[in-house]
């Protein structure tokens, strides 16, 4: 396998075809590949099939912008800055997006199985819940579990008996997304990936995916990143291409680099609860802007510096967060 190719954001995103199954790095409003999401919307991607361990601002926006047909996950929202994923809610309630619901462990285990090269993983998680209600298997109801799409398993799950120690448990089928887009702090020029702070489910998402776009705050020399291989997560042969994009997770946060921009997310949440509001937001922040550099100029250095993490802690110590 060749070493990963270095690209710019537009080139990297252009590789993703309409209808692709996608997953992402990060957790809710942390370390999401926002720059790539903006670019996907700019390029007008359609019918994307998201399978993600959890959702957040990135997926709510992508769904609002009409790029997504199927969302398989367990949660969406903006944490403190928006209590639900209002774009997903609106689109789902209008019958425009199909939701397949899992618990956190169930969808994590789908990705973990994929990352391990297994067809499924067993788990005890969330038995006795409506995520397992056969009447709520939406992909089946939509006729999508007929085997024609190799990325959609024929069954949502199985309940099986444990022949070794007794009892019952679940088998969750593997997910192997076509593409993972991961925003990370650092990548070597030959593709070695370093993630700092909590790892979320990045390892599983990246290893499960057939193609991987790494968007990094900084591209560094391989010699440098390889001085401490115990701190690295992913080797270059597991990466398809690398992109350098500073602040590329804004408005979500990036451990050690910058804070979540709560004000920005709150404004997004408030102004995009209607489709008209979302359309206006997308026009203002994506279509009226040629690229991410212009987006960052609009955010402005003053705000970005407020968000910048203090290296002693990995987070900003100057930003105002609460009401006092």
């Amino acid at each position, binding site marked *: 396998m060749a070493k990963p190719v270095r690209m710019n954001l537009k080139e990297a995103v252009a590789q993703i075809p309409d209808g692709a199954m996608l997953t992402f790095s990060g*957790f*809710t409003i*942390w370390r999401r590949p926002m720059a790539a999401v903006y670019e996907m919307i700019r390029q007008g991607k359609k019918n994307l099939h998201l399978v993600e361990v959890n959702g957040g601002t990135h997926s709510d926006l992508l769904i609002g912008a009409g790029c997504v047909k199927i969302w398989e996950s*367990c*949660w969406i929202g903006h*944490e*403190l800055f928006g*209590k*639900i*994923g209002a774009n997903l*809610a609106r689109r*789902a*309630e*209008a*019958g425009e997006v199909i*939701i397949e*619901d*899992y*618990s*956190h*462990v*169930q969808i*994590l285990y789908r990705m*973990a199985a994929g990352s391990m090269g297994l067809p499924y993983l067993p*788990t*005890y*998680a*969330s*038995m*006795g*819940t*409506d*995520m*397992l*209600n056969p009447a*709520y298997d*939406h992909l089946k*109801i939509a006729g999508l579990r007929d085997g024609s799409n190799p990325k959609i398993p024929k069954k949502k799950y199985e*309940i099986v008996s444990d022949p070794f120690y*007794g*009892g*019952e448990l679940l088998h969750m089928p593997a997910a192997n997304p076509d593409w993972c887009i991961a925003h990370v702090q650092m990548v070597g020029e030959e593709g070695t990936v370093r993630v700092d702070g*909590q*790892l*979320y*489910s990045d*390892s*599983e998402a990246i290893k499960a995916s057939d193609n991987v776009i790494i968007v990094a705050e900084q591209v560094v020399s391989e010699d440098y990143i390889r001085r401490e291989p115990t701190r690295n997560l992913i080797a270059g042969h597991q990466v398809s291409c690398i992109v350098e994009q500073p602040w590329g997770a804004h408005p979500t*946060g990036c451990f050690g680099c910058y804070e*979540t921009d709560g004000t920005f997310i709150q404004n997004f949440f408030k102004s995009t609860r209607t489709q008209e509001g979302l359309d206006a937001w997308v026009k203002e922040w994506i279509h009226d802007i040629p690229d991410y550099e212009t987006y960052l100029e609009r955010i402005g250095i003053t705000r970005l510096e407020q968000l910048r*993490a203090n290296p002693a*802690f*990995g*987070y900003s*110590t100057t930003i*105002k*967060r*609460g*009401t*006092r």
Partner: protein
Amino acid sequence: MSRDTTLAKVGEFKPIDLLAVAAAREVTDGDVVFAGTGLPMLAIGLAQLTTAPTAVCIYEAGSVDGRPISLPTSVGDARCIYQASVASGLFDVFNQLQRGVVDLAFLGGAEVDKYGNVNTTGMGKYGIVPEKRLTGSGGNSDINGLARKTVFIMVQEKRRFREKVDFVTSPGWRVPKWPSGEMVPKKEVYNKAFRGGPEAVISNMGVFRFDENGEMYLDTYHPGCTPQQILENCSFDLNISRVRGETKAPTLGELDLLYKTIDPEGIFLP
């Protein structure tokens, strides 16, 4: 360190203060606690500063036994791993949960039924075109299913305390057994992975616990509330016969910790 143990009077504390304090009192020292964003962070922080100094807090994004000096706004926050024992990810901490390491968890929900089944997925008709979509399960259902004890922190409204929730996101003491969906005791579904379940629901009006049959009863009502008022804000036939009296109010020392030490910036507290 001695703190002011004087009980605050009605009017000297807000409902959210009592929620945090009552939840903190559910922690036993040494517990391994799974906590989510918001009130659970206040509760575990308060417990660690008072009666449970060696309790271990795990956040599902991958922080194990962090000792934040600045309150996280969510479990993915960079603040979570300050002085943590381990910073890992979901796969590690959920595997710890499944392995049986977790003693207690704090959770929330939009609706609860009398068996402690909780809905965080959607209100009204669920289906391929849902009536009203909420956030979804997150780790709520996994944690409620596999921790030894869980404590729910919820808003008390008639439409939220229901005979039957619109969607069983999180498994209580009687749960649907698939494929039939028959409601059976949780133990029959979980078998050897059964470890317990909802220990308490703490609302803005009272503290509820579960009897031998897994049915909710009123344990204590908060200062300023009455059992009758609670009944009026509950749409199932709540057992109030076992009520022990009034919920212990926050102490001035606890309030001081909450407002000055744990959340001085006013992130979750007003």
